[in-house]
């Protein structure tokens, strides 16, 4: 099995510069500096690498959108990993911080950026110490700072901690938060590539995306592009959690059947139960029923099956669960995390919560399902950012695939009023 990001992930002390260099770390810098910055962008374009944070936008294309001849420019690494089910970036940051730094140096060189920030969620305070230490080591070795390896290129990278807000993983909210404000999303356009941090051209990429770049520079775009499917190139980290025997982060070549990930890598469903549903790409992506388990784990195949690859968090649910319970928990999350800026999201998440809660108290009526779908229709695509859409996705998909789970509650006698 091809391993790029997790190749040496469990090597002892990989987080130190010494071990990282022994494993071939930072070799890509000289190769990159021997080329022109725009050649690196072309390489990343040719590799087919797509953003691993959720949206799957081609990384090289994103870099090429930076407003021409406007400086300074900034790089923000999105390490706000908060999508329920997702914990792959945490493993990279914890065990291999230098890989991210190397990727950020390459991206910065390609985009002519001299300042980078790593925006980590506040709960990753422990990881910020590891990252600060790694940045210090890289600086002392001359990989960061002025005139890196005699190339004339300068770069400083700093860590920055959030403080508990899921919405700051949305790129424009992240920028507002990094500027010292409330993490509310911005109207787009302008996109960050034109007006981002401090209203300057800004690249925002997920941790995993940036960690892939050293491989592309070292091994060549063709080698990366040879992996995966026609439009989904390379490998993807998948966080498998829920009712599996061996939950964990696994690196798979895009296009691997989901069945293999659940049953071979993660050991299958535990306690002798059967697979009922799976959420392929984190809580914001629609859930799929068990009969879709042969879907290829890539952007296109999952979209065709009616969901999204998202951040690569595969949440596995067995047949001991009533899906309505799971759905209510997810709605509760989005209700809590709605920043309150847009009315459809602020009010809609709460209404969905109240209605599903009533259903679970056996006080619902069949018409409630129509009401839920009606509210969802008034939330999706009607807000500044996709948080409302994310809340809609478990509701609509659970009704579509597991309507009978809702109907079970209508048959029972109401729970006495609470």
């Amino acid at each position: 099995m091809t391993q790029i990001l997790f190749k040496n992930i469990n090597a002892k002390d990989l987080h130190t510069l010494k071990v990282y260099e022994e494993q071939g770390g930072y070799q890509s810098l000289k190769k990159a500096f021997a080329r022109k910055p725009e050649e690196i962008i072309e390489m990343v374009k040719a590799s087919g690498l797509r953003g691993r944070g959720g949206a799957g936008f081609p990384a090289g294309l994103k870099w090429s959108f930076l407003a021409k001849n406007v400086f300074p420019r900034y790089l923000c690494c999105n390490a706000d990993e908060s999508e329920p089910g997702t914990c792959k970036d945490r493993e990279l940051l914890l065990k291999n911080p230098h890989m991210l730094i190397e990727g950020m140096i390459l991206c910065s060189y390609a985009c002519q950026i001299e300042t980078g920030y790593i925006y980590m969620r506040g709960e990753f305070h422990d990881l910020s110490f590891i990252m600060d230490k790694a940045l210090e080591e890289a600086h002392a070795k001359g990989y960061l700072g002025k005139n890196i390896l005699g190339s004339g290129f300068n770069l400083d990278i700093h860590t920055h901690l959030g403080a508990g807000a899921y919405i700051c993983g949305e790129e424009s909210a992240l920028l507002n938060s990094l500027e010292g404000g409330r993490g509310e999303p911005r109207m787009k356009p302008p996109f960050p590539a034109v007006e981002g941090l401090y209203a300057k051209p800004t690249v925002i990429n997920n941790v995993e995306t940036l960690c892939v770049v050293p491989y592309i520079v070292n091994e060549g775009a063709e080698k990366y592009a040879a992996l995966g499917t026609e439009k989904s190139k390379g490998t993807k980290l998948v966080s498998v959690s829920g009712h599996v025997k061996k939950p964990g982060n696994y690196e798979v070549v895009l296009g691997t059947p989901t069945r293999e990930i659940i049953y071979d890598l993660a050991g299958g469903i535990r306690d002798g139960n059967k697979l009922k549903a799976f959420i392929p790409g984190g809580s914001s992506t629609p859930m799929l029923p068990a009969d879709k388990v042969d879907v290829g784990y890539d952007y296109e195949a999952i979209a065709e099956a009616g969901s999204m690859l998202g951040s690569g968090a595969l949440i596995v649910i067995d047949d001991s669960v009533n899906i309505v319970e799971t759905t209510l928990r997810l709605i509760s999350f989005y209700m809590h995390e709605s920043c309150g800026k847009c009315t459809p999201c602020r009010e809609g998440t709460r209404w969905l919560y109240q209605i599903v809660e009533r259903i679970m108290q056996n006080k619902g009526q069949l018409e409630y399902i129509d009401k839920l779908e009606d509210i969802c229709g008034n939330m999706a695509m009607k807000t500044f950012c996709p948080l409302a859409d994310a809340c809609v996705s478990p509701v609509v998909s659970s009704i579509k695939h597991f309507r009978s789970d809702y109907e079970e509650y209508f048959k029972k006698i109401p729970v006495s009023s609470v």
Partner: protein
Amino acid sequence: MSGFIFSEKQEKEVARIIAKYPFKKSAMLPLLTLVQRDERVVSPDAMVAISKKLDCSPAYVQSVMSFYTMYHTEKVGKYMILFCINISCQLNGCDKLLEHTAKKLGIKVGETTGDEKFTLHREECLADCTRAPMMRVNDTYYGDLTEQRIDQVLDSLD
């Protein structure tokens, strides 16, 4: 007059943080975090002190602070327990374990023990889903929780 004064050690840290950014307002969250970690609360006086460092109004500091869940206007315990209740942990039985933890500490979720040692909060996903159910106590993540494991962890803290 503000009743909150940055200590000498904190002043050094404040200067180091502000130097990371071309505009000092970017230091807002890091300064709030610094105060929260040292004082276990961000008091109105501390908001005034931060506003002076960043050349903005205390009201602006409060507005930003109120957006984020990791800052507290009431002092929290020496150990802050964030107990994840999101989907992967739910599927792995976190609700019963949270109940157990509250019962063990003799408080309700959201409260602080009388001796100010523990605060227990229900928390959304903390990004350690492959070790669910999990909790975070101050900076440390604890995964694969059971009642015994929780007891062991909490009993080991002094």
